């Protein structure tokens, strides 16, 4: 059984969109001013030594235009080596390997990949897929990299209707630029009140 970690770079108001995509989002690469060596090391460590990736199609396409050509670094090497499990209706057009389609039933596909023995699965970016994962209770860990800025627009991590959950704070650290990286384990549904 694999552990599914959701790792997101998120604004104080919950936005995880970082590129303009096709919806006119005006703050592309808004996290850039906050990047520090300490932050990079913390994010790399949070991913772990080796892992596979679970990605939505849009994030996969953005990343496949960047990481294969990126200079070697622990993060680039690990991302390029990871098997990319991609939620897509067009698996024949995938190019950045190694990859596998998740299959037409995304929730079932993720359950199947999770049930295998193997490396941790990291899900990052991919706002649509992440919503699906959270709504179906498939995430085991949530690693939030919180930036000290409100954006007021953009795709958000948590959709209304995400089931209520308790979590446990495992660790937290702040970078010199004010980014807080916190690791949470998903503990379970909330107890009913009353």
């Amino acid at each position: 059984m694999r552990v599914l970690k959701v790792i997101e770079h998120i604004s104080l108001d919950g936005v995880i969109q970082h590129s303009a995509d096709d919806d006119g989002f005006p703050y592309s690469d808004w996290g850039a001013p906050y990047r520090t060596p300490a932050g990079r090391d913390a994010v790399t460590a949070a991913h772990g030594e080796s892992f596979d990736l679970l990605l939505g199609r849009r994030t996969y396409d953005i990343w496949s235009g960047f990481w294969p050509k990126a200079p070697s670094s622990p993060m680039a090497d690990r991302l390029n080596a990871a098997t990319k499990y991609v939620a897509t209706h067009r698996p024949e057009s995938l190019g950045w390997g190694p990859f596998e389609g998740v299959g037409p039933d995304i929730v079932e596909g993720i359950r199947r990949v999770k049930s295998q023995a193997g490396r941790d699965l990291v899900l990052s970016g991919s706002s649509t897929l992440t919503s699906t994962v959270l709504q179906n209770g498939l995430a085991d860990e949530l690693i939030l990299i919180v930036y000290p800025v409100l954006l007021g627009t953009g795709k958000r991590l948590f959709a209304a209707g995400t089931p209520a959950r308790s979590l446990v704070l495992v660790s937290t650290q702040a970078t010199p630029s004010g980014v807080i990286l916190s690791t949470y384990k998903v503990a379970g549904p909330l107890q009913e009140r009353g």
Partner: protein
Amino acid sequence: MKTLITEFISLDGVVQAPGGASEDTDEGFAHGGWSMKYFDPDVMGGMFDKLAEQSDALMQGRRTYQVSAAAWPSRSGDPFTDWINRVQKYVVSDTLTEKDVVWNPTTIIRGADFLRTVSELRGQHGGYIYVYGSATMVRALLAADLVDELLLTIEPIILGGGKTIFASNGKAIPFNLESTAKASTGAQVCRYVRAR
């Protein structure tokens, strides 16, 4: 004076009804009181006392004011309680009248005068204008970029919907992280100061 917004907030940005089941059940919110188990007196108690000590006003939305005015006046004997009962209070409301106000001293601010009044107070000398709860009012303050400090107690819970303080107006507002404190309960008290 400076505005200081203090909120108990879930990972998904909800601030509704942290303190009690019947505090605010708008839109069928069913998790009232969710924040109580994350309170850590060792980490949080002294912090709120100290900020209150530096504050010369309390500003609230109508609902938070009414919940507070029903609870605080009958209490006494600790620094925060004594401060909140003594301090100058402002409530933003178009419906309350002078006879509704029994928690003194309180001044009613009408909605149309709200942003101007806050701007004027921020131009005066004095300590913080302390705010808690009051989701609707805080959203208006953030939308107007009238927030000087944001003290978020971020709690390890996802609520799946409820009132938030964050506006969706597309205006980016940068803050500096001033300090963080980790509570034994997994809550984190994060103090942000408007970057200018």
